[in-house]
């Protein structure tokens, strides 16, 4: 076994209360590295066919990577996986904080939960001692409140994951919360935990992780900290964290506004990073071993009450803020808090709420159906909808399945402005004049999620005939030229291997992506931890293997899966942006097909977007290639 791993997998059959501790296969560590790679491999190997994502047969996975928990910058990431209740296909989501390191210190690289507990329970992992205890009156309690209660009962040494009422009620965009404000938000991972009757998982680890060269790690780790803190962006980026990009996203016409009706909002300065510093922030908050704490813990005062809350970060600002036209940072933070306590993903929640409000405006949903008049820009409307959703009360029953399902049930043309891909709601970048970013959302393996690839800068750089044109137009023109759709796929694919690579290693990508922490540092840190030399290119090839595998999982799990699942919503294809820098632009269906054709060809997929057997074999996935023809929907024309 390579060093850097705890070397074991913890398996808990909740139905039979059977606990197993298995060795981590060395081949798995070598071929899939960790984290998201372990999730993909396990889902492909162990998901029973045709199961209900919210039934007991689904598999819930928590996995760290070889760099998780090590002495190096931002090594606190944990990856979670399941068959997604939002999409029916491959699902993973990750969070920072301290859970993954604690799980490794307890002796486990990965935890796999199957079955369903007989009654609401808390899973407690304390090194070798694994217990399933009744959740008692935690059931029904909010995520943050539950974590507080468990910390009081069990002690601060336990790292705790919780779900809120949304997870208990199996809302398709329920999240997992940890460390009072860190979420694995996407794909409905919290609903899967709720479906297994698990309210919380508490872990305390007192062991250590074998490292190939501890002395070298100490030196490299210290050097890495100094390096990150000396980066040019450190003093500029860290104070505001991800919220610092709000102004720029607005300036380039990519801010989701009013349920993606437009991409520019002149009120953005009321909800940007500076507003957080001015009106909310008490302190920075970081994850395990993080030198660049991007979390902003603060206090929000609104007409609905005062709350302490971590956030909002940019995605929350855009989806609960501009997309719902909430123009007060304290109100955005309050909605953020409500989502956190109820256990709802703020991205999906913002999209679903804005869709419901637009339906009300258009007369597709009545006051009686919703329970009150709702309107954009009104915090009470948003909070009302969030509470209904989490408890599946009233209109919440319709909305709890996510925007795709809700629109399919409501019909009347509402599907056109249900903003999602594959059933996962779109995150914080409007793309009608950003074809590369549009393609990134379309082909993201979990649905419309920005963390898989992010090429907005390349879209802008390529949106004019030359850089010179962009330079000249800046400041003299408020209108960006129409972007070309050809030649976008290679950058998207490159980004789809690069960004998720950090999810394999078990560390945060922000030090690399935002601050420019160099590639060679990761190669060196991996080597001193594991004892194995692996170049960045070799790591990227593993990331590519995982991408082919996650696509294959969805092709197997989703009936009729293929090209049609990669299309963006009608609004983004048919409705030109009405104002702002991208006024008049949209991407046509024909252009979408050009994007996909180019992408599928470069990926080695057929015309329906299914990996070809020869591609899978080349990627070291012969076992997948052997069976893919049995379950995938191939198309050659």
């Amino acid at each position, binding site marked *: 076994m390579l060093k850097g791993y705890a070397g074991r997998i913890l398996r808990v059959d909740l139905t039979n209360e059977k606990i197993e501790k298995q060795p981590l296969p060395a081949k798995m560590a070598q071929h899939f590295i960790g984290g998201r790679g372990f999730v993909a491999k396990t889902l492909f190997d162990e998901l029973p066919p045709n199961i209900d994502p919210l039934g007991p047969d689904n598999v819930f996975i928590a996995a760290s990577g070889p760099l998780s928990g090590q002495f190096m910058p931002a090594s606190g990431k944990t990856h979670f996986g399941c068959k997604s209740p939002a999409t029916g296909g491959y699902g993973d989501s990750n969070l920072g904080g301290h859970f993954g390191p604690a799980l490794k210190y307890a002796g486990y690289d990965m935890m796999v939960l199957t079955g369903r507990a007989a009654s609401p329970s808390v899973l407690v992992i304390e090194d070798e001692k694994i217990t399933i205890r009744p959740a008692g009156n935690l059931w029904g309690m909010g995520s943050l409140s539950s974590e507080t209660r468990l910390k009081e009962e069990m002690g601060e040494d336990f790292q705790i994951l919780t779900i809120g009422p949304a997870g208990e009620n199996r809302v398709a965009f329920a999240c997992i919360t940890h460390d009072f404000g860190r979420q694995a938000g996407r794909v409905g991972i919290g609903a899967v935990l709720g479906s297994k009757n698990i309210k919380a998982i508490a872990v305390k680890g007192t062991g250590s992780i074998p490292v190939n060269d501890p002395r070298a790690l100490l030196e490299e780790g210290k050097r890495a900290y100094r390096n990150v803190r000396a980066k040019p962006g450190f003093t*500029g980026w860290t104070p505001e964290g991800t919220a610092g990009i709000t102004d720029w996203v607005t300036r380039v016409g990519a801010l989701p506004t009013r349920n993606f009706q437009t991409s520019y909002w002149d009120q953005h300065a009321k909800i940007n990073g500076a507003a957080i510093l001015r009106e909310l922030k008490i302190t920075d908050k970081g994850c395990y071993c993080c030198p660049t704490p991007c979390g902003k813990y603060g206090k929000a005062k609104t007409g609905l009450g005062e709350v302490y809350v971590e956030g909002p970060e940019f995605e929350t600002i855009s989806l609960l803020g501009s997309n719902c036209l909430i123009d007060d940072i304290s109100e955005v933070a309050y909605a953020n808090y409500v989502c956190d306590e109820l256990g709802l993903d703020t991205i999906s929640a913002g999209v679903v709420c804005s869709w419901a409000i637009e339906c009300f405006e258009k007369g597709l949903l009545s006051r009686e159906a919703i329970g009150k008049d709702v309107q954009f820009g009104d915090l009470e409307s948003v909070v009302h909808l969030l509470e209904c959703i989490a408890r599946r009360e009233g209109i919440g029953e319709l909305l709890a399945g996510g925007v795709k399902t809700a629109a399919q049930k409501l019909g009347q043309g509402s599907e056109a402005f249900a903003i999602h891909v594959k059933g996962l709601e779109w995150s914080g970048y409007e793309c009608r004049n950003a074809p590369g970013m549009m393609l990134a959302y379309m082909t993201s393996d979990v649905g419309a999620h920005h963390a898989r690839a992010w090429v907005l800068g390349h879209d802008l*750089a390529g949106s004019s005939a030359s850089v010179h044109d*962009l*330079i000249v137009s800046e*400041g003299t023109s408020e209108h960006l030229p129409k972007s070309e759709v050809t030649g976008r796929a290679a950058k998207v694919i490159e980004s789809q291997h690069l960004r998720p690579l950090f999810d394999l290693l078990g560390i945060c990508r922000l030090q690399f992506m935002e601050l420019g922490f160099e590639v060679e540092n990761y190669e060196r840190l991996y080597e001193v931890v594991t004892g194995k030399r692996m170049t960045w290119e070799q790591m990227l090839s593993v990331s590519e293997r995982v991408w082919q595998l996650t696509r294959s999982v969805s092709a197997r799990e989703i009936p009729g899966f293929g090209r049609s699942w990669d299309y963006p919503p009608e609004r983004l294809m048919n409705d030109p942006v009405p104002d702002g820098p991208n006024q008049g632009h949209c991407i046509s269906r024909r252009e979408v097909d050009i994007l996909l054709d180019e992408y599928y060809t470069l990926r080695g997929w057929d015309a329906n977007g299914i990996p070809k057997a020869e591609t899978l074999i080349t990627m070291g996935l012969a076992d997948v290639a052997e069976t893919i023809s049995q379950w995938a929907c191939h198309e050659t024309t």
Partner: protein
Amino acid sequence: MTLTIHVAQSLRGVVNDLPKTIIVGYTERKTLRQLAVDVGIPPILIVFGMINGVKRDLNDIVGADAEVHFLGTMSGG
């Protein structure tokens, strides 16, 4: 008198052939925006600029012997 301009990887990854550090002579008062244009960086790609380690508006004037940092397209949380 000179100005030292540091170009972040997030910009160099998007605009080809930009060096990591550029030293230019200080001949007149310029904004961060004008300075970016001078060295071939489309201002629209700059998420924020810093003068002597402090985040500043692109329309702010750069003084002599300043250290300027340009940071590029970042992605949210």
